């Protein structure tokens, strides 16, 4: 007796809507880009805005990826995540200012070395800060959402105040490294070099993260833990350790996002992380909480939409992302790539 079905079933006979259902969110990004092209008309403006939207999306994704996994794994709502963005920016920018000779030199190598050092420093500090934050602030409130919101907002405020203490109350202006100033022109469209770099970094990070989540045992444990934590424990894995690791990595990524965002805006403030959190939460929610792929798509949609709308109808730029969130949640209340939770 064999259990293999005689008819060799495949999943090819899924209906079109079923198959599109999974692919649809991925298709939304090109659809939005094409719609942008139609609405804007001028190809060069469209190309400039698209690069700028993708760059912004990548940076938001970097900030949101940790948040979405932290929620997915342990149901933890962390409003303090924004603090890591700000701290990362201040640490990174301090390093860049200290390395003024390198950033001012007309050498791409020295410029990139300075950025690399700034990023490493920012990620090390925010990773360590994340570790402490998890132990002191998050761990005591596992499983209690209201308390999580209250204490993590408290943590955010404390860290923001510490930034004032260490770096003073004023915003800090920062010039991009010499070779990353200005734009390259392609087909009549000006594309800022720094934005192209941001798109590249974001893409590499997303692919790396996907590889880790899909191809490594740790990644498997994280994905399984997002879906059904108790079962992961019952198989013998210590979910809490995995969670702490993800929390640290997510905080470090927020720090990286802070450095990148600071260089993008060319100014940093203690409140910048808090301001970004609105977009970060929108991205995590429309992507489907717990889904890194969803956050990636959501971030690109948010970045692109914001840039297109700011060009077409500046007054609507602020509400465009809220409208996007509302629309997507009406279509898929759990987000675009919902993680099916075991009850």
């Amino acid at each position: 007796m064999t259990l293999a079905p005689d008819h060799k079933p495949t999943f090819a006979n899924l209906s079109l809507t079923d198959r599109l259902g999974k692919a649809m969110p991925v298709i939304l990004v090109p659809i939005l880009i094409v719609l942008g092209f139609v609405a804007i008309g001028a190809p060069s403006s469209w190309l400039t805005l698209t690069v700028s939207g993708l760059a912004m999306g990548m940076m938001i994704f970097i900030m949101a990826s940790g948040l979405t996994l932290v929620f997915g794994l342990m149901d933890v709502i962390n409003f303090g995540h924004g603090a890591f963005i700000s701290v990362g920016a201040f640490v990174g920018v301090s390093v860049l200012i200290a390395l003024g000779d390198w950033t001012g030199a007309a050498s791409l190598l020295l410029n990139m070395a300075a950025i690399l050092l700034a990023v490493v420093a920012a990620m090390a500090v925010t990773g360590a800060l994340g570790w402490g934050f998890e132990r002191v602030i998050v761990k005591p409130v596992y499983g209690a959402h209201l308390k999580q919101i209250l204490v993590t907002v408290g943590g955010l405020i404390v860290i923001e105040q510490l930034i004032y203490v260490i770096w003073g109350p004023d915003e800090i202006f920062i010039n991009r490294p010499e070779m990353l100033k200005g734009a390259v022109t392609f087909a009549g469209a000006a594309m800022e070099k720094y934005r192209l770099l941001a798109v590249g970094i974001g893409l590499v990070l997303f692919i790396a993260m996907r590889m880790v989540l899909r191809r490594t045992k740790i990644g498997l444990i994280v994905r399984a833990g997002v879906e059904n934590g108790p079962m992961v424990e019952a198989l013998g894995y210590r979910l809490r350790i995995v969670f702490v690791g993800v929390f640290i990595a997510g905080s470090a990524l927020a720090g990286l996002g802070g450095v990148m965002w600071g260089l993008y805006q060319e100014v940093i403030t203690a409140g910048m992380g808090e301001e970004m959190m609105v977009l970060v939460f929108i991205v995590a929610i429309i992507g489907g909480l717990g889904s890194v792929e969803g956050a990636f798509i959501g971030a690109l949609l948010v970045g692109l939409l914001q840039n297109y709308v700011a060009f077409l109808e500046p007054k609507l730029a602020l509400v465009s992302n809220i409208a996007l969130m509302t629309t997507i949640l009406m279509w898929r209340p759990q987000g675009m790539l919902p993680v099916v939770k075991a009850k």
Partner: protein
Amino acid sequence: MSEPILSLRGLHTDIAQYHILQGVDLEVPRGQVTMLLGRNGVGKTTTLKSIMGQWSAKSGQILYDGQDITRLPVSARARAGIGFVPEDMGIFRDLTVEENMVLGCTTGPLDPARKDWLLSAFPALGTFWHSEAGNLSGGQKQMLSIARAMVEERKLYLIDEPTKGLAPAIVSTMAQALRELKAQGASILLVEQNFSVARALGDSAAVMDDGRVIWTGEMAELAANKDLQERLMGLSMETH
């Protein structure tokens, strides 16, 4: 006879404000299949979850392989050699069949010989090896849940209604796999409503009612005695 692999002594477990287990005493001898029987809602699943640590016992003792594990965290119990097949199967739906199986291996990579054995027992898993587990049928999920627990050798298996909702042909395959598992020397605590499976597999039996074990003995003795079945479980198991 050697000491049992598992003994529960006066185990009490609360779920929220409800006092569900009210002093469970139970022994699972080594290398045997012990059936845990009883009407719906008497606490069989709660007993397995308490052994695994998913519910923490309020009082009483869980002795496993000569060690008191009553206060150990869930993952430590698993690493001590307890395999768990929960009633809801605990399949990771977004992961492929292969990835589910890989997660069952906590000490190293998937052993090819073990994999071959499990795929010959459950060929459907091979057919869908690279498919998302969420796309499997209910019966196939059940097989995956069992196969995942068996993918590494464990000393004790807690298996909660593995044949629930399975077609008869598959039930016998499942029973055969459990028999092979036992032949390898594993000890099994099995919750099973299907009487022919229970009779065929069980060495001993424990019957629960209202959060307690009210009868223990040889499975053959219970199977042969309809009056006893009627008294313990409210109906003769033959009528299932």
